């Protein structure tokens, strides 16, 4: 268990800042996701944590040890970290057991202790029967589990995961997500997980750092991120929902039904504050509309199994998304109220 602190870290490739003045503190044993679209600098940040890239500015510390600064660089082999790569990075000339045992060999673990720990690591990922195979003989999911066992075998202070599920199909992803969670519960290791898939990050992480163009945009728990995204950009990146403009409210404010509905009655020109309304906060009225209700036209609907996703258009032309248990007729007009809203920062 180790606390990882990143203070004002920047990374320049020539003139371009891949990571720009990023600060984060990861608590011991925390599972953290670095989330952002491709090119946002999340992988560069991970590689600086691992020590594959030197930092240009700022500091990285593990507990009280300085790992990296502009003038100081601890080599990756001395950082006591482990990493799961997108391409698995299993050594093709070694068997599965040798791959898993390699970090132990470097730590001079030999004999019965070595065999016992390799066996235990393989048992944890349910691959005991594959010890003597070559990595090439395994499927993608199995390879990734071998890579996980290789991380697990030495009980590292920090485990870094670089888009580990990107090469797997959807069913395997769900299974592997559970493997990662179980792995985290068991080892209590501090984990940093890089992904561009928000649902993966939401499902796994204790806290998520959302990155955009090298900068940290928001650093919060998945629930906060969903309920209280900081800006229009974060709101668009995470979860589903619609953006309306109202006349009252300030960024970071939660609006009640009354305030929200009132703010929508103002003339269009004075409505400048963006508000996020999640689909679950749109109530479709079955009975006759009252004067206070909004009226919208159903553009189209998508069947999602447990419910229908309605894509509506308000009278002022704004798009709005809602859920409904039954199918409606496309083109029909519906009455609705908005029960809750969250005021966003403008981009």
């Amino acid at each position: 268990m180790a606390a990882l602190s990143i203070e004002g870290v920047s990374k320049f490739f020539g003139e371009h800042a891949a990571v720009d003045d990023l600060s984060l503190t990861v608590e011991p044993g925390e599972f953290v996701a670095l989330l952002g679209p491709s090119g946002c600098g999340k992988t560069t940040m991970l590689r600086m944590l691992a020590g594959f890239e030197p930092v240009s500015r700022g500091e990285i510390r593990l507990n009280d040890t300085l790992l990296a600064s502009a003038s100081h660089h601890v080599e990756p082999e001395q950082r006591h970290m482990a990493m799961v790569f997108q391409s698995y990075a299993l050594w093709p000339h070694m068997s599965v057991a040798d791959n898993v045992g390699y970090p132990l060999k470097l730590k001079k673990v030999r004999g019965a202790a070595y065999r016992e720990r390799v066996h235990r690591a393989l048992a944890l990922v349910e691959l005991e029967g594959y010890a003597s195979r070559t990595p090439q003989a395994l499927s993608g999911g199995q390879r990734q589990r071998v890579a996980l066992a290789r991380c697990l075998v030495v009980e590292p202070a920090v485990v870094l995961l670089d888009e580990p599920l990107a090469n797997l199909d959807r069913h395997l992803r769900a299974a592997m997500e559970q493997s990662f969670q179980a792995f985290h519960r068991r080892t209590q290791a501090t984990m940093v997980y890089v992904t561009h898939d928000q649902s993966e990050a939401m499902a796994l992480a204790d806290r998520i750092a959302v990155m955009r163009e090298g900068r940290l945009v928001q650093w919060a728990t998945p629930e906060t991120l969903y309920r209280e995204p900081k800006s229009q950009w974060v709101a668009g990146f995470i979860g589903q929902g619609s953006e309306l403009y109202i006349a009252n409210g300030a960024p970071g404010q939660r609006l009640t039904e009354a305030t929200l509905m009132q703010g929508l009655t103002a003339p269009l020109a004075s409505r400048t504050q963006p508000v996020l309304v999640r689909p679950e906060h749109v109530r479709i009225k079955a009975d006759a509309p009252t004067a206070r209700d909004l009226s919208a036209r159903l553009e189209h609907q998508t069947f999602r199994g447990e419910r229908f996703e309605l894509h509506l258009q308000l009278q002022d032309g704004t798009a709005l998304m809602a859920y409904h248990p039954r199918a409606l007729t496309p083109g029909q007009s519906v009455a609705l109220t908005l029960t809750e809203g969250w005021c966003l920062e403008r981009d």
Partner: protein
Amino acid sequence: MAAFEIGAGGQQRWLLTALTLVIVTLSLAPSARLLFEALGDLSLGSDAPLVRVLQSGATWRALGYSIYTSGLGTLIALVLGSLFAFVITLTDIRAKAALVFCFMLPMMIPPQVTALAWLQLFGPASPLLKSLGIAPALGSPQPLYSAEGIALLLGIQAAPLVFLALRTSLLALPRELIEAARISGARQSQVWGHIVLPVTRGALVAGAAMAFISSLGNFGIPAMLGIPAGIYVLPTLIYQRMASFGTGVLPEMASLSLLIGVIALLGVALQQRYQRRSRFGLTGHSGRAHDFLLGRLKLPVTALMVAVLLVILVAPLAALMISSLVPAMGVPLNAATATLAAYEEVLSRQGATWRAVSNSLWLAGGAALLLMAASLPLAYRLYRLPPRLQSLALGAVELPYALPGVVLAIACILLFVRPLPIIDVALYGTLTLIFIAYLARFLVVCLKPVAASLAQLDPSLEEAAQLAGAGPWRRMATIVLPLVAPALFAGGLLVFLLAVNELTVSALLWSAGNETLGVLIFNLDEGGESVLASAVSILVVMLVAALMLALSLLAPRLPKGVVPWQR
């Protein structure tokens, strides 16, 4: 759809016929003819040529020298090639491009020029040593006229083969494999020993086997260093017999060729086995230097590399240069003796020089272009053969190149010594015969990179084009060709460089008026005209270096991987 299928089938049939025709005429016919000649008269019992050859002491001496010089040469090549490949590819040493260029140069310089340059470097008559005043006394032996001297030069000449094989494998090594080891706690030296070396070991062995085959077939070096000392290896033995006795000894020569061919094929088998083993199907980000930090070792390692290059490249070329500037062998170079007379002589008075230059350029350029044009459709069809047939066909195409050049030359003489039937044209003694021999020999050099590149191509790329409505020829032109173009160009380029430097085949096939550059230098030196030979050699080195340099300058505009010594 039906029409389309018929179109595709027509193309496949047409290509299959062409492929079979090329393989049978260029690749199999010469070897088959040779085999027939060598084994044909076995019924004569103890009088059969093969039996006579095997009973001769000269055969076994030459065989012994062949294996000794090639084996020792391979060791030297292995040490030099792997040192340069590991240091240049893996570490943060500076001026990598320049180091690679200088290291590759010896491979591109014709062997007879290398031999001549080294001869100018040592021995009592060395103009370089004379100029420095440190030449040994007259009458002292030339140390290079020995089996070890031959081995040393063979090693230097073949080192780039090891280098290239290993470097290719190192560049394909995914960066994650190294990073995973480092984060597991491995130091740089451990990463090298535990991961890099084992993963690339197959390439190392394959490179060594290539160096051995190349050394075994080398003619220029043992001819220039061995013949004066009475040391014969198999290729020079064949050459000497042919030169002394003419076509009358062809049956015996066919038997000798068979012997050397068998050894070379054993080497090929070894190489292919290890090359297959080294293919792991690695995935991940590759093609990036892994940058092992040399730290305090940077200066000594750089010094070592530069020193090696000084010895294997700069010193012999300097000796060659000095020899070309003196009026006669044994005269030291100084302000009073320096003269360009040799250059004047070869360029203006000796018509043979220009004739040889134009012969060599036509042969090499023609062979390169023709083979490039033929390679894509042939490789395309080859790739669609059932796996077993495919490896058989590739083996057949590989045969004339894997066999030492002297074997192919003998085989071509056997095939064409009598005028062709029906049309009654005699090819023996003409440039056309050399051209045909080059086509046979270098087909695989062009075909193999293209075939390898095709094999790596995702089939869905072509399927997508097919669904978009592109017919077979159109797919080949618009989808396949652009994707394999780097391999195709690299192949053509290698053919040109190999052919322009070629001596072994043409040494046996040339006739007056049909000299190649290689033959010209060899003849001048054999005739005692070392100074003139040096002048021609300097011109050849300048031509080769200029070609390589031009390609290096063009490299940024060419597809990646076209220029072997650049990334």
